[in-house]
């Protein structure tokens, strides 16, 4: 089996994977990163969105082997020292979730949007989230939350964000990391 080395949320993992393993499966079932979910299985819904080298991708449409040597950020990599990322906090404060299943993907895509366009208007938010579906149809508050987050994330408005220097150097996975596996094949 191919061996891959991937940095996920600041930790470097080396694993053997089957070529057919999807990135989302690898994240959930081998690394226990179950914050990233599988929604539709047809590449439509965007619930599985993560960042690959800083750009949003649907992790159901990337093979784990394609991520070899790349850097992945998932929803689990956003909080810092127990503090929610401002985008997460905005979703919380604006009631931007109902069932919550689309939320991880919505947040990861919203961050990608703000990286390209830090102050999107309402239409631009809707277009930027085009690849993410909310089955509860709770779009109003999602759009509100993203615009609110763009305020909070303006330069000088708050603590350093995702793209700032990491607070600690990348580390290698320990057995403890893997012991946290709670989903996928173990659930």
């Amino acid at each position: 089996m191919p061996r891959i080395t991937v940095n996920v949320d600041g930790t470097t993992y080396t694993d053997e994977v089957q070529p057919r393993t999807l990135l989302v499966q690898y994240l959930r079932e081998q690394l226990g990163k179950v914050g990233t979910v599988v929604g539709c299985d047809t590449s439509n819904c965007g619930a599985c969105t993560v960042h690959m080298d800083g750009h949003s991708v649907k992790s159901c449409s990337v093979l784990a082997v394609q991520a070899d040597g790349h850097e992945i950020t998932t929803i689990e990599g956003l909080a810092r020292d127990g503090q929610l990322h401002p985008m997460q906090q905005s979703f919380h404060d604006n009631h931007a979730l109902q069932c919550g299943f689309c939320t991880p993907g919505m947040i990861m895509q919203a961050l990608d949007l703000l990286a390209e366009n830090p102050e999107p208007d309402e239409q631009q938010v809707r277009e930027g989230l085009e690849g993410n579906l909310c089955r509860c149809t709770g779009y109003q508050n999602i759009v509100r939350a993203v615009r609110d987050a763009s305020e909070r994330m303006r330069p000088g408005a708050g603590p350093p964000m995702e793209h700032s220097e990491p607070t600690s150097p990348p580390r290698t996975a320990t057995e403890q990391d893997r012991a946290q596996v709670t989903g996928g094949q173990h659930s």
Partner: protein
Amino acid sequence: MIPASFDYIAPTTVEEAMAALDEAGEDAKILAGGQSLLPVLRMRLADPRLVVDLGRVPELRGVRQEGDSLVIGSMTSHHEVLGDPLIREHAKLLALATRTVADPQVRHRGTFGGSLAHADPAGDLPAPALALEADMVIAGSSGRRVVPASEFFVDYFTTALQPNELLVEVRMPHWTGWGAHYEKFNRVAQAWSVVGVAAAVRTEGGAIAEARVGLTNMGPTPVRATGVEQALLGRPATSETIREAARHAAEGTSPTSDASADVDYREHLAEVLTGRALTTAAGA
């Protein structure tokens, strides 16, 4: 769903990729950005023995100028196309069409060459490639050959590419100074075109000197609306001229009926969208 098992190779040069394809023949599938192939594999609509991933072949990526040609590597992502200053200046139509492809996540991974080789009749990039008179540079075991877009698209999801061939790059003339617009009609977010129209127009002193019009999803392959192009030549760039010319949009097309639209509705859309695309492209 999870794809069926396959072997995987990630060559780092075109030669290595060619060698792998030669050996595997029809049992191999080329993986470009994977935004069409992976869903197909997951739904088990294809079952290749070998997947050849071009993602680690740097020579297939990027945009450059070579003499009178704009050269776009087949593995250049949609996102890279959108941000490229050469494309913005010399092939604006391509950038405008690329903006309408799928959604941001897919545009980060999906590639220009992959979209062309996939040849989905509802895909948004074959029609602009045809309208912009692109040439496909194809590598095979006996060297390279060049196929014009007008001969590259053969049928539904079928191109002139043989199983052991690889689309290396796409060359097109400079369309500097041409007005352009891609008018796409679809019903919901991130959906394929019901019909799309790619239009590029060069005006001279208020008259239309030249025009190129390509249609998406008006047949098994992209269609060049030559009747429209000819009706515009030398005419003033006005809404009357465009309205008259657009009546020719559906000539020679063979659209299908499906859940999105019947044949006559697609023909109607072709005319209306051609009018809109030309109006914006010509600034009329």
